[in-house]
């Protein structure tokens, strides 16, 4: 006898994405049916990124996943030594345990779980019908979580392999390796290799992925060769189970993720990092987005589809959105990543994080969030969202990886430290609510700041001579020119009256940096940073119609904030913590970014590392400099009478200076600096 089940949503595909979608739908009180056949794949361990962990926690599935936290992600790009990726939160778990746990979570939340093959769903008069075993299901909404399609757009299709091994001494970290290209031929495709520790000592799972045609045996052999090369931990690895192979499809686009009323989630939507093959965090995030889109429009499948597309566009950017240039842009990104592997310049570090990790990166900053009253957030939030939208639109088609620098994995974008915040507050200082079109100018300022960082940071060293492109230098110039040109274009289109000042600002930055790196130069290190933040404050105040006194006060505020920013970077770097610019102390000194040598001539990274006295002197200097700049910035704000404007700016500069606040018991500063490991130190 056939049983009929009337549901709100049918989720086809019972992998991680499907189970999470069903769980989240049930949590919203919708009748969800989770149907699909178990893929019967052999078990292996996989990586749970910070984004995946947050997603699992949000649907209450973290306990069930049995995640084991690992200390570090070791990144090996090209032939050099590995580096620990600072603050990359990660965990590992067994795939089988995760799947069972997620299905249990879905059922506990109230979803119905129907294991077995599902017939192709058919829609009649707005209702989907499908059957599995002896059950027929009808539902208004359909979510497809059926994994990567075996065929797809050729530029984004490849192979993914994983296999368990023993005899490996890998316990506390994940290894991610991207070997250097063997030839100058752009037709060569990269292989990404990873290893995660297993549940018992001495075991691990080794995996590899490659876009384009690949043979599973060859791929796993390459993986082992890459890992064992120069890393004794993998020398005695022997396989302990069968290899698992799957299709890799990273051909995501928000528009293709809704097909004739079907909402595609996870691998089915092509949401896979083409470099690492990582798809779990995207599976979790997209499943939650799809469920929430449906929950927002339970009676209207078309509206749910539109909402889902919108949410996807705002959440995932940076991969192959246009097939035309995908292969070449992918090749470019690979060459740049490998060429800048040992490079600790701000831009390189940011690009690595943005391209390789699902967390992405946020503008000028790390994770610091500005505390703001809800009313201020309500005012600032929409403006910054509009700003992000414009910025991403300006670069996403032509240089998708840069788009990832702008919003990937973003949490609370409205509370981050970013140049658009002082710009907004300065606009407000004149007393009028900022015009929404000013968000375009804010986007231009943020793109320009990112572009300026490419030119104003220390230069990468030249590649060894030979017949090749010097990718490190080339990408610096290309990214800088591209971002500054896009920014100028946005300014001319949205606020032509600012075009002159904007170009003049770029010229000023070039001159300040040129003076700073000149051997005979007497320019202070903080001046470049002061100019970076002075401009948004000044232009905002002028456009917002503030009085000349207020404009002057805001200019001064911006300049002092820039100095404070640099000193806070120094404090973080001296402590061996991740800085906002992702730059290490030696890189700051070598690149003449730091102000420390201005007052302690002859200081070097080695001296600071080896001499506690010099270190403490430098720390005092940086902390005092930060406090002085903070005080001066607050003093300037006395002439800003608009209460909300002043409040936002006070919060901005206080958050900027937070690393220099006196150490608290709970804070990382409580640990003696000398005892802290240097996160930039080579690991192998």
């Amino acid at each position: 006898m056939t049983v009929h089940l009337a549901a709100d949503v049918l989720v086809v595909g019972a992998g991680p994405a499907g189970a999470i979608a069903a769980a989240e739908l049930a949590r919203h009180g919708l009748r969800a049916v989770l149907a699909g056949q178990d893929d019967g794949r052999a078990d292996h361990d996989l990586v749970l990124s910070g984004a995946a962990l947050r997603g699992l926690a949000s649907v209450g599935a973290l306990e069930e996943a049995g995640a084991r936290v690992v200390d570090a992600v070791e990144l090996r790009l090209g032939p050099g030594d590995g580096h620990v990726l600072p603050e990359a939160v990660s965990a590992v778990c067994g795939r089988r345990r995760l799947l069972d746990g997620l299905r249990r979570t879905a059922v506990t939340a109230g979803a119905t779980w129907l294991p077995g093959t599902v017939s192709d769903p058919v829609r009649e008069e707005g209702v989907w019908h499908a059957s599995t075993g002896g059950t027929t299901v009808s539902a208004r909404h359909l979510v497809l979580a059926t994994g990567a399609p075996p065929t797809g757009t050729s530029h984004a299709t490849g192979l993914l392999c994983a296999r368990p091994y023993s005899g490996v001494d890998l316990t506390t970290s994940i290894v991610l390796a991207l070997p250097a290209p063997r030839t100058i031929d752009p037709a060569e495709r990269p292989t990404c290799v990873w290893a995660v520790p297993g549940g018992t000592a001495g075991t691990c799972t080794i995996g590899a992925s490659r876009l384009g045609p690949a043979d599973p045996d060859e791929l796993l052999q390459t993986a082992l060769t890459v890992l064992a090369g120069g890393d004794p931990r993998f020398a005695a690895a022997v396989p302990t189970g069968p290899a698992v192979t799957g299709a890799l499809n990273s051909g995501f686009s928000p528009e293709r993720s809704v097909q004739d009323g079907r909402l595609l989630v996870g691998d089915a939507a092509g949401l896979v990092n083409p470099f690492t093959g990582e798809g779990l965090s995207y599976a979790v995030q997209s499943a939650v987005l799809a469920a929430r889109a449906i929950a927002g429009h339970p009676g209207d499948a078309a509206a749910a589809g539109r909402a889902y597309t919108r949410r996807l566009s705002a959440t995932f950017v940076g991969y192959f959105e246009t097939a035309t240039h995908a292969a070449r842009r992918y090749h470019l990104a690979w060459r740049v990543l490998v060429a800048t592997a040992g490079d600790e310049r701000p831009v390189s570090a940011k690009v690595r994080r943005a391209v390789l990790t699902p967390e992405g990166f946020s503008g000028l900053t790390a994770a610091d969030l500005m505390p703001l009253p809800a009313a201020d957030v309500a005012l600032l939030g929409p403006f910054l969202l509009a700003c992000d939208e414009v910025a991403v639109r300006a670069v996403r088609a032509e240089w998708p990886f840069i788009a990832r620098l702008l919003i990937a994995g973003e949490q609370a974008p409205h509370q981050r430290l970013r140049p658009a915040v002082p710009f907004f507050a300065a606009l407000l200082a004149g007393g009028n609510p900022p015009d929404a079109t000013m968000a375009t100018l804010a986007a231009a300022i943020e793109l320009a700041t990112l572009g300026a960082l490419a030119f104003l940071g220390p230069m990468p060293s030249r590649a060894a001579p030979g017949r090749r492109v010097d990718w490190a230098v080339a990408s610096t110039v290309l990214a800088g020119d591209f971002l500054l040109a896009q920014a100028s274009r946005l300014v001319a289109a949205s606020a032509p009256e600012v075009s002159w000042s904007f170009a003049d600002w770029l010229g000023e930055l070039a001159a300040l940096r040129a003076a700073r790196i000149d051997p005979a130069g007497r320019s202070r290190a903080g001046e470049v940073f002061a100019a970076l933040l002075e401009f948004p404050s000044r232009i905002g105040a002028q456009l917002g119609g503030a009085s000349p006194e207020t404009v002057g006060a805001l200019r001064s505020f911006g300049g002092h904030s820039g100095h404070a920013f640099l000193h806070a970077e120094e404090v973080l770097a001296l402590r061996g913590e991740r800085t906002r610019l992702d730059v290490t102390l030696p890189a700051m000194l070598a690149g003449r970014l730091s102000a420390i040598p201005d007052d302690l001539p002859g200081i070097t990274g080695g001296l600071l590392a080896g001499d506690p006295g010099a270190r403490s002197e430098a720390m005092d200097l940086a902390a005092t400099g930060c406090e002085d700049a903070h005080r001066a910035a607050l003093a300037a704000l006395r002439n800003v009478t608009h209460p909300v404007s002043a409040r936002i700016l006070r919060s901005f500069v206080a958050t900027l200076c937070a690393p220099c606040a006196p150490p608290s018991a709970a804070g990382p500063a409580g640990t003696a600096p000398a005892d802290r490991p240097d996160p930039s130190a080579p690991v192998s």
Partner: protein
Amino acid sequence: MTTTAPPGSFTAGVHDRLSRLADDLPELVRGPVRTLIAGPGKFARPRLLAACAAFGTPDPGRLVRLGAVVELAHLASLLHDDVIDEARTRRGAPAAHTAVGTEQAMLAGLACFALVGTEAADLGEGVAGAVSTAVATLAYGELLDVERAFDTAFPLPAYLEVVRCKTAELFRLCCLLGAAEGRCGPGETDALVRFGAALGVTFQILDDCLDLSPSGSGKPIGTDHALGLFGAPTLYALRADRGGELARLLLSPSFGVRDLPEAHALIKDRGGLEAAARLAADWHGQALDALRGLPAGDPRDRLAALTTSLLDVPS
């Protein structure tokens, strides 16, 4: 009439304006820009702009400033191109990055782009908008050109996209600014802009042909091939390179100027030069078509003469 000034005085005026602008740059970024300005430039872009403006009645002072803006945009991109390509020389002198170092050369290029921005803004919102759009396209062209290095399977349409963005866009801008300054009507402006874009593509295809054999222009040959930037003749020949002989030669790690005669022979043998010449003729034809859409007379004749001289001796 304001357009009767002899061309010599116009380029002298542009040169003078450029020198003044460079003199106002901050000291540390000034040197490389000055050296470039002092070098032997043909002012192809300012002359094109002026020739287009001659269809109307431009203000001579503004015309000189506009000419300086487009030349400066060209110089700024040369500074950055030379950093990327590691060129040894530029216009007969050591390239800026070899003289002052990579970072200072990069900053000089940035300062130069900034100067383009302030000058364009000074000349009006329309100028600022047109210039910033063109510079954005130029930057994208720069990216396209670098990422295709050593690509022996680079498709012709993609090559044309690079050429349109990297070379033709600036020619197009000159014609657009010239038409605007001459207050040309929409029909004339449209024809001039189409003309500029087609002229720029023709110019680049012919320039690519010159990378293979000495032209007497004094430009070093084989540079683009050594960098893996294969032009139209080579890309056509690669499509007919069934045995892969040409591709192997071009991708050889030791490929250099001494291999050029062999590359030249292989490319010629595979019909590359002939096909590229046809492509150039096609684009030249498009430029001339656009030209015919303009009113007959002195300005058109002079623009045609300028076209001939530009295509004869690419800079």
